[in-house]
């Protein structure tokens, strides 16, 4: 299989599988952005893309869940389920305060992750608390504006637009690279597929200034954070834990409060995300020592390429 075929099968096909629910959920055939968008399409798309991409790497053994990291696709599915259920709740109970809906969504995503994902070395209560905090915290920060925007009483709030898709693309790509450096290609490639889907969602959101919605963002942030924790748990090359955590929460920088007089607030926030991703990824690569010479040094400066 050539590298081009690997990208096609591992990244592009899983992303393409997610595009249909994404397009339906965003109602792309309509010129105007749908009212009260929850982003269920992106939630379903993210779960499908991630599971498909993992399956492309692992085959049918993925469904047996014999290895703890394989639970990631279940976590992605559960997060999508929680997010879609929350969007339905928002639809059928519009008077429910946004604070309750947003907090409930973030907490359920965090709790689902803690219950299903038990990576090695995260068995203590304090470890579980960190997982809950990272997943629920980032989900809450990211989805809060969209949850409030879906409130009829406050439609003027800024939603999650194209820049959020780009932010997830940056963070997902950075995490994919770091996980690859740690020697975990079977997770790195699905993260690449997730990043590609995020970028596609961002591009599609430009039409009609669509809101990516809280359900989609909650799913993306849950998958990103849980994958970062898994990457950290299985790392054996010495990448600092904070690199993984920084990449997990990097998209939260899109909620950085900036004065309204700034014209390019989205770009400024993206610059912060890029800086966080750059520092975390750069540190990870340096600390991993993959550019150091190994025992079998053949004199070349770069000997990370094993040829497969």
């Amino acid at each position, binding site marked *: *299989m050539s590298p081009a075929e690997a990208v096609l099968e591992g990244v592009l096909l899983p992303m393409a599988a997610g595009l249909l629910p994404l397009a339906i959920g965003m109602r792309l055939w309509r010129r105007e952005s749908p009212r009260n968008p929850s982003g269920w399409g992106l939630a379903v798309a993210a779960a499908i893309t991630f599971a498909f991409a993992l399956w492309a790497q692992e085959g049918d*053994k993925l469904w047996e869940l*014999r290895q703890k990291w394989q639970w990631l696709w279940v976590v992605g599915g559960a997060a999508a389920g929680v997010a879609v259920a929350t969007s339905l709740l928002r639809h059928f109970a519009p008077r429910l305060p946004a604070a309750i809906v947003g907090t409930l969504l973030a907490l359920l995503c965090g709790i689902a992750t803690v219950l299903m994902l038990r990576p090695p070395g995260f068995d203590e209560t304090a470890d579980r608390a960190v997982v809950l905090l990272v997943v629920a915290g980032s989900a809450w920060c990211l989805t809060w504006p969209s949850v409030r925007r879906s409130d009829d009483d406050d439609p003027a709030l800024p939603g999650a637009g194209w820049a959020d898709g780009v932010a997830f693309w940056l963070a997902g790509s950075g995490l994919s690279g770091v996980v690859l450096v740690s020697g975990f*290609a*079977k997770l790195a490639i699905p993260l690449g597929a997730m990043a590609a889907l995020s970028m596609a969602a961002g591009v599609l959101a430009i039409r009609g200034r669509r809101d990516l919605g809280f359900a989609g963002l909650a799913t993306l942030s849950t998958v990103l954070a849980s994958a970062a924790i898994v990457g950290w748990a299985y790392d054996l090359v010495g990448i600092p834990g904070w690199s993984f955590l920084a990449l997990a929460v990097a998209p939260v920088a899109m909620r950085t409060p900036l004065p309204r007089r700034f014209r390019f607030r989205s770009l400024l926030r993206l610059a912060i995300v890029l800086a966080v991703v750059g520092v975390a990824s750069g540190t990870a690569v340096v600390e991993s020592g993959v550019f150091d010479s*190994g025992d*079998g040094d053949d004199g070349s400066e770069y000997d990370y390429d*094993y040829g*497969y």
Partner: protein
Amino acid sequence: MIRPNTRNGLLLALAVAMPAAALALAPRQAGSEVPITATEASGAYTVDGVHSNAHFKVQHLGAGMFWGRFDDVKGSMNYTPGPTGTLDFDIQIPIAGVHSGNDNLDKHLLSPDFFNATEFPEMAFKSTKASPAGNGMWKVDGDLTLLGTTKPVSAMVEFTGAADKGRGMRIGFEAAFTIKRSEFGMSYGVESGSLGDKVVVVVGLEGVKAKAGS
């Protein structure tokens, strides 16, 4: 004063006794003038981790055969020689002992792409049935546990020797078998054809006889 006949008698006694003592203390090995008896060779053995190791080979990019090795093999063996003899293995191989000759490749082999050492620090083989196949060969069936998956495997095991060279009674075996790694959940590179699915495993074992009561 020692009388001549007495001195001669002592010399004669020494001349007889010393070779006998030397013979008794001398290292012995299978096939030597003083062969190891079946009774001496029979018993329980502890695997000598320093002098035992496991090698594997897998095809790389459809071309060459890539060899890797595991050190620190441990476990126990039970052996009774002869046509009606018995042979049992209970072997554990720490995944952390994998060596390929390249540090970065070793780390990749330890990752979940391959052996997932964080979650599964050991692989194990436990024999379930063994029968002599003649010429020092044994056919051994057993269960191989890798990545938390246990599958039956059959190995041809060669008895390579038994000796006591002053460091305890020792026996040696060499086992060879082939597995499909994807059946154990190690499928990285199989579909793309970059790494073969079939893995040949060769294990060299040396056991030192367990002391009675241990």
